[in-house]
């Protein structure tokens, strides 16, 4: 795509400088509980940023000893077919390196717009929120949260 941007019109220059301002995309991946990573998407996601985040998550996951990752989508304002494509690729790649992937937090209006317009995001595991996703993680690990008396 970059070879298309060789034009020297004022608009292209503006566009490039804005890209510079936006800078590197911060990628947050935390070990939220033993054996489980947590990551999410923050800020506005264009497809270039999205790709960097996806690559980052893959890289961190691959290097860690964790087997489950929760990916929080609660800050994602729109899921179009391009973003859905990135999420599906992320899901598949993580599975191929031996991770279990739990998505969570898709906002109702995002879900509705996807369904009404026919954006497909099939075959991924989704939980309502991070709490529900964590509950599943504990269950898989044979753990249970109990109140200390």
């Amino acid at each position, binding site marked *: *795509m970059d070879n*298309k*941007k060789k*034009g020297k019109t004022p*608009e*292209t220059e503006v*566009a*490039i400088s*804005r*890209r510079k301002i*936006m800078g590197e995309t911060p990628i947050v991946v935390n070990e939220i509980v033993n054996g489980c990573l947590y990551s999410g998407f923050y800020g*506005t*996601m*264009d*497809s*270039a*940023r999205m790709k960097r985040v996806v690559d980052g998550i893959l890289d961190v996951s691959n290097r860690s000893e964790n087997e489950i990752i929760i990916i929080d989508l609660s800050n994602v*304002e*729109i*899921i*179009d*077919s*391009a973003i859905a*494509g990135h999420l599906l690729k992320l899901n598949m790649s993580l599975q191929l390196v031996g991770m279990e992937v739990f998505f969570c937090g898709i906002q109702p*209006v*995002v879900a*509705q*717009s*996807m369904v*009404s*317009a*026919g*954006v497909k995001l099939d075959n991924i595991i989704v939980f309502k929120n991070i709490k529900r996703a964590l509950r599943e993680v504990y269950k898989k690990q044979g753990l249970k949260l109990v109140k200390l008396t």
Partner: protein
Amino acid sequence: MEKQYNILDSSDVVNVRTIANAYAKELGFDSLASAQVALGVSEIAENVLRYADRGMMKIKAKNNNRVLHIQITDSGAGFKDLTKAMKEGYSTSKNSLGLGLGIAKRAFDFFDVQTVPNKGNVFMMEKYLPLDNSYITYGVATMKDERYDHNGDIVYTKEYGGDKLLIAVIDGTGQGESALEMSNIVKEVIEENFLLPIGQIMINCDKALREDGEDSSAVITIARIIPNEIRYFGFGDTHSYLRKKAGTQNLKNQEGRLGAYQLPSLIVNTLSVASPYQLILCSDGIKTLQNDKFPDFDLSVQQTANFIFNNHHRLYGDASVLVLKVHRNEV
């Protein structure tokens, strides 16, 4: 006021969809409609980057701020075969172009692409504000013949342009699944052509039914409601009524059947009407109604539809009632 924004790289995709979303919200669209606008714009803008060098979005409000109008132009090669490109799954590159266009089409109320080979594409998209309850309300009662699994009647409503409404009661010949398929053919043609004059829509429906097979036919009542005016066409044994507080007028149907016999020259009636009035559309599963068979004029539209259905449906046959009430002259 029309505004313009360049689409040159992927951060511009975010930019134009954010602007479109905010613009929609400002016009009064709810969060889902605004999200759909953003989604549709995002799909087209992604397409622009994928297949063209550059593009531009123009955005404005039309028709008394009741229509959001978006135009995206690109300077790509244009689509070689537009119909193919619109089909799901079809793509000229490995990323799915067809899918994106289909999504954008569904995200908007109106979607059109004009393509100039070797020059580029012009995408025109519109989202319409829903009609206000204080202007128009409608209620529907429809039920299948109990001997069959499917309802062959289709009650169709399409709000558009921020102040207009197209309604129809479609009755495919016979009962059950085959009747429903015939009704669906008609419905799809209406859906694709809702902006065309009623007569032209009917000609297209007739053609589609004939193409489907010689047994495919349907009767229909279709009406377009615009401020102060109704355009009305009834064909076959559907029946309709225009009600005012003072009394009820039985609207005349033309004899015939879409997809069968020779199609006569169709006469679409234009009625000037002052609010408040009711327009009641019935399929033949409802008995013909005399003046004294209607409930109180001030009953809600849904209650009116229920009343007519409960008191006047026939023993057999799919039966449908659509009751529409226009409460005031302007939106």
